[in-house]
């Protein structure tokens, strides 16, 4: 009997029953391969890796249940209808029956992806977790050239632009941006979104609870008479926006696949935006002023709309009915038209919203919100406007730019910083600082207003470092990171003595406050001292290590020639030897797989070390060449 013999009437079992190949799946669904792809993309079905590949190694396997899941989805029927509809249109076109073509085109069967989205992401957090690719793609397509005769229609590109701006406006409004990074590939942004899940809702009386939010934490709050289980889930969402330049369209990509993805992502982002806007009480598709939109000041417009609306909505929330909508709309439009002429209003709006929402923010958001507070930025023509608009306003600054529709002019005396990216600046206002765009990004990453000397016009700015790298974990800290660390430490020291200046000894209340403050201060000082001690110790250790290494380095070349040098660090080498020996002995009894794993770990750590060594060697060489250059 052959090995794989299955008696007639007996069902398939195991991997043979669980997984089917792609061609089998296509046959089962009775669709063509492109449609199968589309279905997989929309339904989020991906191949699986069976333990035993029954049909061979070169096949792609899908889970049988996945395919059954696709098969029972109404979207399959809709797609089939679309196909027959396309045939009808084609026939009508070939018969030159224009009327019919028109009529048919108006009646194209459509599907909506709401249900699919909800199916794939049952909770809002899940959707946020998968948003990275979505945002990257939508932002990329928003930056594509609107070419005619291409598969990507102008309408879709505009939709992408709109969605991306809506998303950014929300981030600006809620000050959720945490990190950003200008890379060669584009500008990376990272936001931290918290979603509060309240399960077991039996709230009789709601207390005001201040939650300190931290990522990935779960809180259970137990009140008397009420039990509210709240889960706070933080999601880090990172996306890339391409540089605002003409994008290169390549031929070697399959636009059908990309557009299918885009279709889903557009729907997903629209829903996510809808939910987010709902959470800050703003009506979702925001109605915008076409004049400003034409000036390509979308983001500014949107963010203003959002912040304004959410500020105003507290009052309007109760009577937000259909009747009021239209009047509200006209009101909003009126305000939009009014505001650009007078710069003060925007500030008022910002302040107003800040006052309203101060209490329900966590510490980090507060810190982010106030980073650029009381600063006014002006962007020159050559500066990427959208990116800076987004970043500065997300961190609480006020921005204007050169062009129509700008909230304030270049000649405004209250401007504190002007962002310039040109070799030299002709006319300079003495009241403001002229900086390169990188300053803004570095400030944001460091959460600190950096000194502007390095970023002046025409200078080569200091290296721009990635905020996504954990320098300590990697084991190599670039110089500029050290410098920023020092600056931060210095800033902390500076900030603390400030309360002492304003205290009045006569005022009893102040004395009390001072007492509290001093206690806190003392605690902080103690902590600082400990930290300093630690740092000092670390420094000494490092120094020692350095010395040793130098000793080693000096002895290394002599090892071959002179024998007795060994004697100086004989103890050291002996200890090394014994350590190595005990390692070897440990390995002796390991099973083969564990030994392999250990070897892999060792190889990986060695690779890492090598990389760091390369960096250090380059740095040394640069220093040497720089030193010799100076001489």
């Amino acid at each position: 009997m052959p090995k794989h013999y299955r008696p007639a009437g007996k069902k398939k079992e195991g991997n043979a029953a669980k997984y089917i190949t792609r061609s089998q799946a296509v046959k089962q669904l009775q669709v063509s391969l492109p449609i199968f792809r589309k279905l997989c993309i929309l339904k989020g079905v991906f191949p699986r890796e069976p333990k035993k590949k029954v049909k061979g190694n070169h096949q792609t396997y899908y889970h049988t249940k996945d395919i059954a899941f696709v098969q029972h989805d109404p979207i399959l029927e809709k797609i089939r209808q679309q196909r027959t509809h396309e045939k009808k249109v084609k026939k009508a076109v070939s018969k030159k029956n224009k009327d019919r073509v028109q009529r048919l085109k108006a009646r194209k069967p459509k599907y909506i992806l709401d249900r699919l989205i909800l199916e794939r992401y049952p909770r809002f957090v899940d959707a946020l977790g998968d948003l990275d690719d979505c945002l990257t793609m939508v932002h990329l397509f928003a930056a594509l050239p609107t070419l005619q005769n291409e598969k990507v229609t102008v309408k879709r590109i505009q939709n992408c632009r709109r969605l991306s701006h809506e998303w950014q406006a929300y981030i600006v409004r809620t000050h959720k941006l945490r990190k950003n990074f200008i890379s060669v590939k584009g500008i990376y942004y990272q936001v931290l979104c918290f979603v509060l899940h309240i399960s077991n809702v039996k709230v009789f009386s709601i207390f005001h609870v201040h939650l300190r939010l931290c990522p990935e934490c779960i809180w259970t709050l137990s009140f008397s008479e009420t039990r509210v289980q709240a889960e706070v889930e933080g999601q880090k969402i990172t996306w890339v926006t391409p540089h605002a330049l003409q994008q290169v369209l390549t031929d070697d990509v399959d636009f059908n696949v990309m557009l299918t993805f885009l279709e889903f992502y557009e729907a997903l982002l629209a829903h996510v935006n809808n939910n987010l806007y709902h959470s800050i009480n703003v009506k979702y598709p925001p109605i915008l002023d076409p004049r400003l939109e034409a000036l390509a000041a979308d983001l500014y417009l949107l963010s203003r709309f959002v912040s304004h609306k959410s500020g105003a909505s507290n009052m309007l929330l109760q009577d937000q009915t259909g009747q009021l909508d239209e009047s509200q709309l006209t009101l909003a439009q009126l305000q939009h038209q009014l505001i650009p002429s007078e710069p003060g209003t925007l500030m008022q709006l910002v302040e107003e919203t800040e006052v309203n929402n101060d209490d329900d923010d966590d510490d980090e958001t507060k810190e982010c919100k106030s980073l650029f507070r009381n600063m006014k930025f002006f962007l020159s023509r050559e500066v990427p406007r959208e990116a800076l608009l987004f970043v500065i306003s997300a961190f609480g600054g006020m921005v204007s730019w050169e062009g129509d529709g700008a909230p304030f002019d270049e000649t405004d005396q209250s401007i504190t910083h002007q962002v310039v990216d040109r070799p030299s600046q002709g006319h300079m206002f003495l009241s403001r600082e002229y900086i390169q765009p990188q300053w803004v990004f570095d400030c944001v990453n460091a959460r600190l207003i950096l000194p502007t000397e390095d970023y002046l016009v025409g200078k080569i700015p200091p290296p721009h470092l990635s905020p996504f790298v954990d320098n300590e974990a990697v084991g190599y800290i670039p110089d500029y990171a050290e410098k920023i660390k020092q600056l931060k430490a210095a800033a902390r020291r500076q900030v603390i003595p400030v309360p002492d200046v304003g205290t009045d000894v006569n005022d009893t209340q102040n004395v009390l406050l001072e007492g509290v403050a001093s206690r806190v201060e003392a605690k902080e000082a103690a902590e600082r001292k400990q930290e300093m001690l630690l740092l000092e110790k670390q420094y000494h250790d490092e120094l020692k290590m350095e010395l040793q290494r130098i000793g080693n380095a000096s002895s290394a070349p002599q090892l071959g020639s002179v024998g007795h040098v060994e004697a100086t660090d004989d103890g050291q080498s002996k200890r090394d030897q014994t350590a190595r020996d005990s390692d070897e002995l440990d390995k002796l009894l390991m099973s083969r797989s564990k030994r392999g794993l250990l070897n892999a770990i060792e190889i990986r750590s060695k690779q890492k070390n090598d990389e760091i060594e390369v960096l250090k060697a380059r740095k040394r060489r640069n220093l040497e060449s720089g030193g010799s250059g100076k001489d």
Partner: protein
Amino acid sequence: MSPEKIISDDDDDNHSVEESDSSEDEVAPRNTIGDVPLEFYKDEEHIGYEITGKKIKKKEREDQLARYLASADDKKAWRKIIDEYNDEEVELTKDEIKMIRRILKGKTPHAEVDPYAPYVDWFDWEDKIHPLSNAPDPKRRFIPSKWEGKKILKLVRAIREGRIQLDKPKEEPKLSLLWGDDSGSSGKSRGLAYIPPPKPKLPGHEESYNPSLEYIPTQEEINSYQLMYEEDRPKFIPRRYTSLRSVPAYVNALKECFNRNLDLYLCPRVRKKRINVDPESLKPKRPNLKDLKPYPVACYIEYKGHNDAVTSISTESSGQWIASGSTDGTVRVWEVATSRCIRVWDIGVAIRQVAWNPLPQLPILAVSVAHNVLILDTGLGSEEEQQRIKELLLLEKATLADQSACSGCCFLFFCIFLTFFLRESRAILVHQLSKKFSQSLPFKLHGLPVCSAFHPSRSFFFIATKKEVRVYNLQKKQALVKKLETGLREISCIAIHPGGDNVIVGSKEGKLCWFDMDLRSTPYKSLKCHHPKDITSVAFHRSYPLFASCSEDNTAYVFHGMVYSDLNQDPLIVPLQVLRGHSSLKAKGVLDCKFHPRQPWLFTAGADSIIKLYCH
């Protein structure tokens, strides 16, 4: 199915039809009950009424047997059918049967009818190519219909009044609040468990538009990338732009996005646990080494005197002396405690191996030199013992001369037996000193013999070829007791546990196999020592649970090897110590190791002409 049956059935069913059918040739039915099912009269005496109103009596039916007999007699019986309605027997004529057959076939009942007769147009006239009426179309065909006009007017009015809307502005489907109330949803997706895709890698410092200078490779390094394999080559080469305005558009943006999409829908996704193991946790827990003491730890005494590599050492059973043979052609006997060389024999040819007699009464040495095996009297021991040795050896000399043609390689004492095997002739000889008699053992060896050993307590003999170890019983007709399959590439040495049930085998690939003979014929444990070179020798301690291996990389490993008397408990093997100290000469390291018979001490003989003693 017989035609009779069909006909009778047919007849029954079509009764009413036949009745209504008023054909001339049919006789009028006698029965006049009308369209009444015949089963109403099932229990009656009569079957119906005549035209005059008289009852028609049921005829006496023949029983089946009679009918059958009648049909056998009567040749026309098959034509006869019973007309139930009239209760009479009818005989079908030939024509009728023909007709029935035609009907059954689906043809017309009468054969003379031609169903496909050519059509004859009865109306034939000359101008039949012209239309019947040549009148012109009426006017109404050309003017719009009044009623249609009225309907259109109605629609137009409706459109004007806004009751009908054309070109409706397309409504964007309103977005519903999908996750409006999360408390309702169970949080479980339908279908299989969702495996989220891995997030894209976040950029490091080197991807910055303005990275630190140390992240930018030099031109030489970039050129060297060309020499690397395609897969190893870095995909991204950092570059430095001095200002933001000089950064160009990223060429591969679309391509990378596409590749990511492909990954998302084409790559099999598997939930894999990220292996974030502490390398320390992988290492097996060794028992506390302090508990396993004593074992040799450090070198205490060096025995210097040889001028060339020491190939072999052997300890005397009392532990007071050791003998060593070297390639400089000398055999030396040393006092263990003082490292004093007691005696030197200069044989002149490189010594292969030396061995003490395990019996303490006869302190004699056997030495294997190129083609000879020599027996040396050490001159130790009491006078009585010396006398005995002299007697023994006196007789011996003649026999040994006979052996000179053979190439002895390795041998062992057991009592006063001496075995040695001969490499080239694949023969194993056993020599009995007392009888001055050599005999060859009739084993068939599968491959060249490498080394041999005696069982410490029973009359078993172990012989190792390159691949396997064979165990023979010397008493019972030299029968093969066991074959140990090592799975090693090339065996170099074996040692037998003093208990006799465990064997260790060292190999030239640096592997050490522990066999439990009671357990199975494959290794109980295979230790991959970090000897990069051959293991030259392995040794068991006679009383302590220790064993050692030494190799050509100048190291000796000491292991704890505890064998339990309880058969259910596996031997415990713990690596204890790596002993170093020898230096290599001519790519050879430690050539031999032996344990002190009483103390947990290890002697090693190195190629650097030194013998070392490692003590606890």
